[in-house]
């Protein structure tokens, strides 16, 4: 073996050894694997299904695109057909009793009112999502706070501060 | 034609060779009819029937309309 090769191997071994010592399988955990040991298999959760109860949900803020109250499995939205509009288009809503798409969906980006749904709003599932039928603890957590509670908190704080005379 | 009507001169007696030939011919005819002709005719009849119904449906529209 040449001198260069021997030196390369030696350096690699040192680095590898250091890395192995620093992050053993029992210390820290791999964010992808979770807390499963290396010699064990993870038990992934069951594939959830979308909630299909057709009950409107409370919106977290006024302009939130409402979540979809039914399953949209296999719904075709492409240049050929839009399965959502088949029920939710203005012309169809009377027959289907589905919520017609709001007026905001008819303006293009320059503010012009169009006769039919604007191209930038055509792909409904860009903004509207279903909710999975799972326990709240399992869902992705967030720290979003409703504006009502923010207002209440600031009002309470204003009340607590004694008024300057 | 009754046997009595056929003149004695016209009646040709069958030789054993004739018989054997006749037997072979009959077998071949039976075979041809049973294995070839009848199936072919049946297929042609059914196909013809299907074809006629198809043409009718082109004019009268699909079934049920």
């Amino acid at each position, binding site marked *: 073996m040449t001198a260069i090769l021997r030196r390369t191997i030696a350096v690699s071994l040192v680095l590898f050894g250091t890395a192995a010592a620093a992050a053993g399988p029992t210390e820290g955990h791999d964010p992808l694997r979770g807390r499963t040991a290396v010699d064990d298999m993870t038990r992934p959760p069951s594939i959830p299904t979308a909630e299909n109860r057709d009950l409107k949900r409370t919106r977290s803020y006024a302009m939130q695109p409402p979540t979809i109250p*039914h399953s949209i499995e296999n719904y*075709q939205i492409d240049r*050929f057909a839009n*399965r959502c509009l088949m029920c939710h288009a203005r012309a169809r809503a009377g027959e289907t009793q589905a919520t017609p798409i709001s007026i905001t969906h008819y303006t293009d980006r320059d503010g012009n009112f169009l006769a039919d749904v604007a191209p930038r709003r055509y792909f409904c599932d860009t903004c509207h999502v279903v909710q999975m039928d799972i326990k709240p603890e399992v869902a992705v957590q967030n720290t979003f706070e409703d504006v009502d509670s923010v207002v209440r908190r600031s009002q309470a704080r204003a009340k607590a501060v004694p008024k300057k005379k | 034609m009754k046997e009595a009507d056929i003149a004695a001169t016209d009646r040709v007696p069958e030789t054993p060779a004739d018989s054997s030939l006749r037997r072979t*011919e*009959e077998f071949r005819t039976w075979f041809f009819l049973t294995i070839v002709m009848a*199936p072919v005719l049946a297929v042609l009849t059914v196909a013809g029937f*299907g074809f006629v119904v198809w043409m009718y449906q082109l004019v009268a529209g*699909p079934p*049920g309309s």
Partner: protein
Amino acid sequence: MRDLLKRYWRTLSTPSKFYSLGFLVVSGFIGGILFWGGFNTAMELTNTEQFCTGCHEMRENVYQELQATIHFTNRSGVRAKCSDCHVPKDWTHKMARKMQASKEVWGKIFGSIDTREKFLEKRIELAQREWARLKANDSLECRNCHDFNSMDLTRQGKRAADAHSTALEQRTKTCIDCHKGIAHRLPDMTHAELR
């Protein structure tokens, strides 16, 4: 040659000398049974998925789309093959459809939809023909499996139960009116005519 034909014609048109009446009748009967069985087997072979998807026009276009749908794979494994929806069960109409299939053989030979572009262009015409057929026979092929009177509406979602208990029950609509695109993707609907 003419002599040969004359002799065989005589054999054909005169009573049999060597074969009994019983033999002739029974052999004809058994031959008929064998033929009819063979005919039906061949007919059902042309109804299999392998036969239909033997043509690349079908295999690479509509069959690919079918594989993502509920009629191809679902939790119960009850599924539909091509002929369940596209070939009528009634014998007369089935024969008519099989003769109509000669048009498809012609199309295969002359390549009427042998590229993706040609297929997409012709798609709306093909789709509308099928929709018209199903509308005319009150979605008979759907009802071969989905019997309305056996539908438990309490087990369906709200939208489905509502739609089925109104339009379907009152017969103002038939299955295909709402369920277009259930098995294959919808074609370009820009030039679709409302029928």
